[in-house]
């Protein structure tokens, strides 16, 4: 296994990579893709959102599922961090709470692949203390 120590190595590796993969322009049709947003504010990071996001990127790539994984700010559900919003094409986004890597696996296998809902959904009408008048 060759090491990547310089930009030249990086260039060589990416040329190898280019020969293997077909480049899809993801940005052009994001509405047809699965979109995953990991809440990455202080509360999320402190609860392990970095591992969750890393896991989604790795696992979706491994399973060859076309998806955009990105981050968002605090959604106000700090008690349930790490929280993740999953939007399947043509459907309303769903927010899941307490998403560690185990939960992430369940979300991929059940919700993303089979459309089956899993436990831990944060209902849309949830209000934070600050919202309540």
């Amino acid at each position, binding site marked *: *296994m060759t*090491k*990547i*120590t310089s*930009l*030249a*190595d*990086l*260039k060589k*590796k*990416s*040329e*190898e*990579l*280019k020969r*293997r*993969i077909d*480049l899809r322009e*993801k940005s052009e049709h994001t509405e047809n893709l699965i979109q995953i947003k990991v809440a*990455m*504010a*202080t*509360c999320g*990071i*402190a609860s392990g959102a*970095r591992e969750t*996001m*890393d896991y989604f*990127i*790795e696992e*979706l*790539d*491994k399973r060859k599922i076309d998806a955009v*994984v*990105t*981050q968002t*700010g*605090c*959604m*106000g559900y*700090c008690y349930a961090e790490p929280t993740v919003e999953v939007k399947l094409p043509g459907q309303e986004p769903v927010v899941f709470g307490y998403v560690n890597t185990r939960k992430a696996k369940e979300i991929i296998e059940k919700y993303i692949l089979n459309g089956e809902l899993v436990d831990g959904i944060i209902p849309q009408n949830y209000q*934070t*203390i*600050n919202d309540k008048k």
Partner: protein
Amino acid sequence: MKDLSLHILDIAENSVAAGAQTVRIVIEEQPDQDLYRLVIEDDGKGMEPDFAARVTDPWVTTRTTRKVGMGLSLLQQNCQLAGGSLDIVSQKDKGTRVTAIFRLSHIDRPPAGDIPATLRLIIAANPDLHLVYEHRTQNGKFVFDTRQVKDAIGDLPLNHPEVLRMCSAFIIENLQQIGAECQTKNDFKLAENDINH
């Protein structure tokens, strides 16, 4: 926050939220001066002087979802616990520079943590951001610049999982060469070599 790499992810996120085009992260390890310095600098929208002065107060935040903001407060607390301090210089419409200083050998200084993981996730979430990461130790200096990486990878997207893995391996290799503190593991392999795929 368990380690400094998580703080970096958190503070860099503030820069992105402030509309920064460029974020520069500099870490310096100076054993002869017993100094560990972390600087995060951006060209975002900056803060008004009175807001900048109050920003380490946990009851001050720009967010609207709730009334507390812990990011900078927690970093400041960690600095102070480790014989250091936090300094924030901000100019409205110019940008912000956050400097965190720790005593390198202090028992309460948080470990550096998985810095490559932090960097690859900042890249993954913000592929258009110009991110510069510089790490200096007694043994040398390493600079990671997403502009240089973009030149090297050509038309591959910077946030392609395989490119992220390559960037991570590149950073880890170089941090090891200069003896930088970093808690991570280098498990990079191109997918075709991976029997599990």
